[in-house]
């Protein structure tokens, strides 16, 4: 069992290495993608700076706390897209019969299918996210917690993408649902949760679990709340398990196609 896990990790790391190598084929494009993404994220600082010049507290967050939230949103987005970019194209992979190549290999179909592409600009998001830790006020505890929640948040985003992508096993043209769902996860992540009330707030901790990927972790970092830390870890494990289960059930309905395709 241990050997199986070790070999799977070896393959996944190799796939990621080759994905990064592909992105680095054009050095100028790679570097500019990373830099422009950092700049793009940084430009939002101005918007918040203007808002906080008018008000000290927005939705229970100070300026520095909002920046930390923005940083976590960027780094979770970055981790999910940098290493698992193909999870966000899963419905296309299923619809075009591209799972065939992974099904004839003795490894995890899901893991292989979601690690075939790497997004270079997402590295800019990760760098920006960690820079916000320094902006907030660096301490080893904050840094380690931020790192932990970057991983859990990234896993939640990928898991949601897998669940939405797996709809392609059951529905036609599910790409639109998948894209909208993934976009919702990003759009809500950058606003302080205090501004949301009632049903919206419930939705943000259930159907669109931005709260579990971003809001709760930020509260856990700020308050250093062990209960919240453990809760985030448990919920992340559950969502990852659920994503695996949905994909596994869907795979039984996989119909493949005879469309010509290449692994590019």
């Amino acid at each position, binding site marked *: 069992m241990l050997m199986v896990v070790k070999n799977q990790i070896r393959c996944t790391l190799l796939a990621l290495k080759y994905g990064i190598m592909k992105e680095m084929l054009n050095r100028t494009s790679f570097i500019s993608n990373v830099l422009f993404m950092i700049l793009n994220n940084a430009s939002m600082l101005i918007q918040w700076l203007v808002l906080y010049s008018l008000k000290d507290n927005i939705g229970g967050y100070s300026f520095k706390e909002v920046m930390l939230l923005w940083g976590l949103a960027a780094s979770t987005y970055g981790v999910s897209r940098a290493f698992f970019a193909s999870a966000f194209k899963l419905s296309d992979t299923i619809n075009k*019969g591209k799972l*065939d190549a992974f099904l004839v290999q003795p490894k995890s179909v899901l893991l292989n299918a979601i690690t075939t592409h790497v997004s270079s600009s997402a590295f800019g998001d990760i760098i920006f996210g960690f820079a916000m830790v320094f902006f907030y006020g660096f301490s080893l505890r904050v840094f380690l917690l931020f790192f932990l929640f970057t991983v859990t948040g990234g896993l939640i985003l990928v898991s949601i993408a897998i669940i939405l992508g797996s709809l392609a096993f059951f529905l036609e043209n599910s790409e639109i649902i998948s894209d909208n769902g993934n976009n919702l996860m990003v759009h809500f992540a950058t606003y302080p949760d205090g501004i949301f009330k009632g049903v919206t707030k419930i939705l943000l901790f259930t159907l669109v679990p931005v709260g579990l990927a971003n809001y709760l972790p930020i509260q856990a970092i700020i308050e250093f709340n062990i209960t919240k830390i453990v809760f985030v870890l448990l919920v992340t494990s559950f969502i990852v398990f659920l994503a695996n289960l949905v994909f596994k059930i869907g795979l039984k309905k996989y119909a493949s196609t005879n469309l010509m395709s290449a*692994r590019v």
Partner: protein
Amino acid sequence: MNVIEVKNLSKTFKVKIKEKGLKGSLKSIFKQKYKTIDAVKDISFEVEKGEIIAFIGPNGAGKSTTIKMLTGILYADEGSIEVLKINPTKERKRLAYEIGTVFGQKEQLWMHLTPYDNFKFFSAIYDIPEQVAEKRIEKLKILFELNDFIDTPVRNLSLGQRIRCEIVASLIHEPKVLFLDEPTIGLDPVVKENIRTLIKRMNKELKTTIFLTSHDVGDIEKLCKRVIIINHGRIVLDDSMENLKYHYLNKKIIEVKMKEKVNLDDEEGITILKDKGYNLKIEVDTQYKNVADVIKLLDPDKIIDINISNIPLENIISAIYKNEDK
């Protein structure tokens, strides 16, 4: 010893149907209609170790669906499959270590990597230790003559070179059974011939059982000793190539150059394919007339030149497809 055993295998697909035009599209929003397509209907067959078997049929006959069920890509609705005594549905990963697959229409290689890097990646997929992988790559490099382009990114290779690399990638773990789904699609005749030679050599040297689907009669004729024809999801013929060629349709083609014109109209068992005065091309149905009788009919003294050949395999296969369609 059988390496593949298929019993009463069936697979259906549910396909959405829509009426024509915008009206049909609007209707389908409120009421969706589906029809069931029987892709594979109750087929059974066995393949012995070391065989090169052709699994052929017209488009949509059920070839790829069958291959996909044999390799664990698709689940069967009914029936049982055993490949090397392994159930592909229940033990997909275990089976994957024992089989190799090449889909001519779907590339498995990473386009930006060199064939060598791809082979290293596939070695990792199959848990092959570094040193063993190096030795196998070296051996396959020689067998498939990859030396000139093993360090060139796959995207810069010609189609023929790429297919050779696809086959090597599928052989890196030394599979016992190799599934080739239209491996020579889109290749020029020289490259096709090259690939066929390599497949034959691989079968001889590595004792690999080969399950081949192809629309190219040359692939079938030159590689396979046994052929299974599938049409409309059912097996319509499972026979040796010998029998298929010489007994199934019992037809011969005779091309003659005559000293003077002959009239073969209304002769039973003879079909005139071409009549250019002194040059004649006829098809003889040996069930009604044997070749010797035809030569007598032509008058041997008046024959300048004669060529007797078997009916092309392509025509035999087409005739089987057409008969089934009727």
